[in-house]
Every structure is written in structure tokens, then in C-alpha cells.
């Protein structure tokens, strides 16, 4: 490496560190006044007593809902800023078991049918387990959360070749309209208005950042049944890209 290239590299690392610290400090310091808004709203509501006007009550719940959104957004920013700083331990995971754990921790599994298909020589692998878990969980959570059918089919297909795992998570839900496909990995972007379906719009951003960090790839394609297919290439040997 030439001297100037090395200097650029050092400056880049310093800037990245500065950015991470900035996001972290800002998010933390904003949380205190934000919590105060939510708390004081509850106190006022409480002090107004039981005969409170229904409009006022609705406005209080709107106020608290929006502060909750703000908190979710801040937490997502914090998580993004810390992606390559926390939970960086490689350990042995059993892939089908990891998928099962992700399914078990989903909020709402009513009417969801999971279809798992593994094509693996060895179900165990040594990898960044927490990160892989996060990515699979986020994709499963999206597949279920945004599903619009009575019975929700979610498919998990995992296979391997010499260098990587191919993880495919697909569903027979509404899919993503062509004109917005390039936006889905942007932070806080949601296809529906947040008033229709309350979500933060950070899951795919965080997942794609994790996948990029491990040197893999994530890709969206529409499925023939109009649903979504997310395909991830997760390398077997991880060289973290900072």
C-alpha cells in the first residue's frame, strides 16, 4: 500500500469511529428527555382523573405512540452504529436449531405455516451466531408481519456449497411493488404508512449491514406467487469488513 493510501485508510477508520461514537452518545442523551415526555404525559393523564374527555384521552395515546416510535427509531440507530462492535463472537451453531429459535421468538405466529428445507452436509458451523440469528429473525419477522393472507406460508431453504451458505426466506404474502424495491434497505423506510402498520423500518437495513459486514450478499426477488424472496449468501469463512 502506498503511503497516501494508508493515510486515507487511517482517516477513514477514524471517521467511522467518530461516527459510531456520535450516534451512540446522541441516542443515549436524547433518550432521557424523550422518556420524560412519555412519563409526564402519563402523569398529566393520571392527574386529570377518571372523568377525562375521550378526545383528550386519544391525544394522549397518540402522543405516547409517537414517542414510542421515536424510541424505536433511536434504538435502531444505536443498533446500526454498533453492528460491528457488539456480539462479534464466533461459535458453533446448529443451523436448523438456530432457525427454530428464531421462529420461537417471533411475536405472533397465529396462522403461520413454516416450511423448512435443509440441504446441508453438516448442520453445524462456526460463525457469528448472534448476527446470523438477527438476520434470519428479521427476515422471518418481516415475512410474518407484513403477510396479508389468512394462512401465512413462510419458506426457509438453506443449502451450502464449498464457500458459503445460501439462505432463502420466502413467503406467499403481498410482495414488494417494483417501484419501491430499491428503497427497502433504506433506514426507516416502510412500504405502508406507519399509521397503517406500526413498524420502524430498520430490520432490512440492519440485516443488509450485517450481511455486508461478513462479506456476504442479500438480494430481493419477487416470487411467482407474488410473494417475496430474500436470498442471502453467508460466507463460511468470515473476514469482517469494517
Amino acid at each position, binding site marked *: 500500500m502506498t503511503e497516501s493510501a494508508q493515510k486515507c485508510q487511517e482517516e477513514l477508520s477514524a471517521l467511522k469511529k467518530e461516527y459510531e461514537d456520535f450516534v451512540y452518545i446522541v441516542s443515549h442523551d436524547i433518550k*432521557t428527555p424523550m422518556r420524560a415526555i412519555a412519563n409526564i404525559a402519563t402523569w398529566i393523564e393520571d392527574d386529570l382523573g377518571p372523568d377525562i374527555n375521550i378526545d383528550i384521552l386519544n391525544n394522549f395515546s397518540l402522543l405516547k405512540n409517537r414517542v414510542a416510535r421515536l424510541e424505536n427509531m433511536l434504538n435502531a440507530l444505536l443498533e446500526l452504529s454498533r453492528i460491528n462492535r457488539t456480539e462479534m463472537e464466533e461459535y458453533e451453531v446448529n443451523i436448523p436449531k438456530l432457525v427454530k429459535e428464531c421462529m420461537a421468538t417471533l411475536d405472533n405466529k397465529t396462522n403461520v405455516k413454516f416450511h423448512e428445507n435443509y440441504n446441508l452436509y453438516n448442520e453445524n458451523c462456526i460463525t457469528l451466531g448472534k448476527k446470523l440469528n438477527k438476520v434470519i429473525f428479521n427476515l422471518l419477522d418481516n415475512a410474518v408481519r407484513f403477510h396479508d393472507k389468512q394462512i401465512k406460508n413462510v419458506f426457509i431453504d438453506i443449502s451450502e456449497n464449498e464457500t458459503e451458505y445460501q439462505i432463502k426466506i420466502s413467503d406467499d404474502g403481498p410482495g414488494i411493488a417494483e417501484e419501491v424495491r430499491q428503497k427497502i434497505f433504506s433506514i426507516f423506510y416502510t412500504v405502508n404508512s406507519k399509521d397503517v402498520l406500526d413498524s420502524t423500518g430498520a430490520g432490512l437495513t440492519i440485516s443488509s449491514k450485517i450481511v455486508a459486514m461478513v462479506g456476504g450478499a442479500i438480494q430481493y426477488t419477487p416470487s411467482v406467487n407474488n410473494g417475496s424472496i430474500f436470498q442471502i449468501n453467508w460466507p463460511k469463512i468470515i473476514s469482517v469488513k469494517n
Partner: protein
Amino acid sequence: MIQKLVNILLVEDDEVDVMNVKRAFTKNNIKNELFVAGNGVEALDMLRSSIIPLPRIIILDINMPKMNGIEFLKIIREDENLKNISVFVMTTSNEDSDKINAYNLNVAGYILKPLSFEKFINSVATLKNFWSLCEM
């Protein structure tokens, strides 16, 4: 039998958070005497100068000016008169390093300040269950 209520010292710099704890005490019908210090230095002064009766329980924030919660904990754990006080950390910091540091200094609990007051009332109720055991 008259129950002896334990004293509690709250070390917290944010005014709203102090009011929050007081409100949550009222909501949970907690009658224990609550003393408040705005940071670690002030708390140490209160503890060492016997301005207040020695508390059995301390509720401690981490991010504070002058002396933060972890620095304060280190000092009281090395002080013969203060080292046996049960300390509960109550903070917004979800940082692993803060949790590890706190547990290494023998805290009785680590509570993340929740966004909603309703959840906070429940957290305080849990604390109350703990210190009720100290009162028996």
C-alpha cells in the same frame, strides 16, 4: 409488630426521573423514606457525614455529572461502612460494558429505565418485593 421500613437513597441527576421514582412509590403505596442525591459526590457526602440515616438500599443511575454510578460503586465497595448496602442500578444504558462493570461490583439488580411509566411502576413493585425481605 411495627414494621421497620428501610431507608432508600436515590442517586439520580435528572429531575423528571426523580419525580418518576417518587410517583412510582406513591402508586405502589411505598412508604419508605426516600433521600435523593444528584450525583455520586453528593451521595458520598450524605452517606459519610451521617446527614441521613444509613440506607440499606441505593438506587443508582449510571450517567451522571461529577461522579458517575460506576465510580461511585467502586468507592462504596471499598468502604468498610458502606460496602454492604444493596445497590440497584437504574439506567438507560443497555451497554454490555456498563452491565458487566456493575455486576462485578456486586449490584443486586440492573434495571433499564423503560419508556412507559406503567412499566416503570411494575419495575418499582419488583424492587419493593426485594426490600420487603430486608425489612423482615
